[in-house]
């Protein structure tokens, strides 16, 4: 499973790589990281949209997670990649905006990795 994590916090990379080290080592998961929406869109070009899961933060400088989601949906109207949005606690406005744009799932900060692992393994 290919997972593209989009977050402007660079430390998220170390956290994911350490947290999912067993899955990565075993070849069950493959992580890629982008720190901006633009970078994520560039990286997506090299993927088969059906086999990738995008995990994106909402509050990012430049292109926000909501805009990224909209662009992904525009580019892939048929069989789009799965997108999980990470929302800040209590950010109901962005959550409903993402929902109306067709986000597949939501995670709330602070991230519960056990919950995330369960959702990813599904």
């Amino acid at each position, binding site marked *: 499973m290919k997972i593209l994590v989009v977050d402007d*916090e660079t430390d998220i990379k170390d*956290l994911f790589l350490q947290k999912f080290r067993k899955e990565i080592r075993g070849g069950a998961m493959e992580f890629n990281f982008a720190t901006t929406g633009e970078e994520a869109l560039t990286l997506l070009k090299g993927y088969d949209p059906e086999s990738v899961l995008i995990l994106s933060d909402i509050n990012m400088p430049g292109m926000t997670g909501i805009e990224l989601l909209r662009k992904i949906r525009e580019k892939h109207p048929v069989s789009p990649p799965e997108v999980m949005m990470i929302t800040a*606690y209590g950010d109901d406005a962005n959550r409903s905006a993402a929902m109306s744009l067709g986000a597949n799932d939501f995670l709330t*900060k*602070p*991230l519960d*990795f056990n919950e995330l692992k369960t959702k990813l393994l599904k």
Partner: protein
Amino acid sequence: MLNFFICLFSLSVIRKNLDTTRYFWNNTDVLKVLQLFVVPGLLAADVLLKEGSVQFIGDAGWFIVLSYIIYILYQERDQLLAGSLLKAGLPYYIFYVVIFIIQYALPSLYKTHEDTISLINTLPIVWLFAFGLSAKNQINNLRREKEQKEKVIHENEALEHLVRERTNEILQQKNQLEETLEELKQTQNQLIQQEKLASLGELTAGIAHEIQNPLNFVNNFSEVSTELLDELRQELSATSIPENSADIIEDLVQNLSKISYHGKRASGIVKNMLEHSRASTGERQLVDVNALAEEYIKLSFHGLRAKDKSFNSDFKVVPDPSLPAIEAIPQDLGRVLLNLCNNAFYAVNKKAAENIPGYKPLVSITTENLPREEAVKITVSDNGGGISEELKNKIFQPFFTTKPTGQGTGLGLSLSYDIVTKGHGGELMVESVEGKSTVFSIILPVR
């Protein structure tokens, strides 16, 4: 007969128009007796007794009555009417006295000159009638003047009454305007303060967001490090590791769990801050009051603790497990609980500063189900310094605060009151024993 009419007329005029109570004694009763009994009596004597010594008694009677009338008129002569009557009557009286003396002292002289005397006597009578008429005019004028005066007095009174009424109306309007102005000023100030509070809330929300992200990393990295250490321990267990290294790994695991624990604590506070600063949606939802109480008493405690390290107090929540969820606006209700808890902690902290031996500051929230009223009761109690009777009426007024300048806006309780009463249709009451305790009770309908 003439005497009768003169006396009757003058007595009646005097009694009606002159104030005869000023000299020596009250003459009113004497005048009445004279007019009603003596004068008619003398008339009867005149008619019935015409001869000799009996006639003398009648004439002497007239003499006394006339003298008395002249005496009264003389005494009251500074009154215009009395002066006029005196002028009219005095010649008649003098003639009467002279003739009376001549008639009885010198009867022969009287008899020889009776015709002449009668002729001369007509002069004072004519004089009397001429002045009597002018006196009558004076009486009429006096009456008119009196009536006009009374009319003017009456009109003046009516005018004064009207002026007083108008003045009262204007005063009332002025007071109403002043009250309205005062209300407007208070509302303006309240709006300014609310604006300030709102921007402060937004700032708090922004800061909380910024703190939350690094805190998440602290929590997540400490957790993942614990996992890594577990893994390391398992891998090393295959080989023999020095005992010290095993201890170090154990300490590291313990430290990381502490970092994780305290990081989560901080996250909890930030979460509460975010919850509190979130703009109220104004939407009612089902609220677990017990959980809300627990959350906000903690938030209040930690908030005050963060501001002042020396602050400390015990606190507890005594929840009623049978409490139903109520329909309320959780953010608003949270704000009320936070305000009440902040005030309670402030009160116990202030009392603690007095260093009373054996004093243990305590703030508690108790909840109670009131099934009969279909309501719930929340009490926030403290064993602080209490509120005096005098201040109890003022504490819910906007901008009333006992805190030092800059420490309180004076809006907390007034906003709380509005939220409970207007926002939720409930009641907010206070009971306090000065120097001992304060209990705020909130009663909220279940729906």
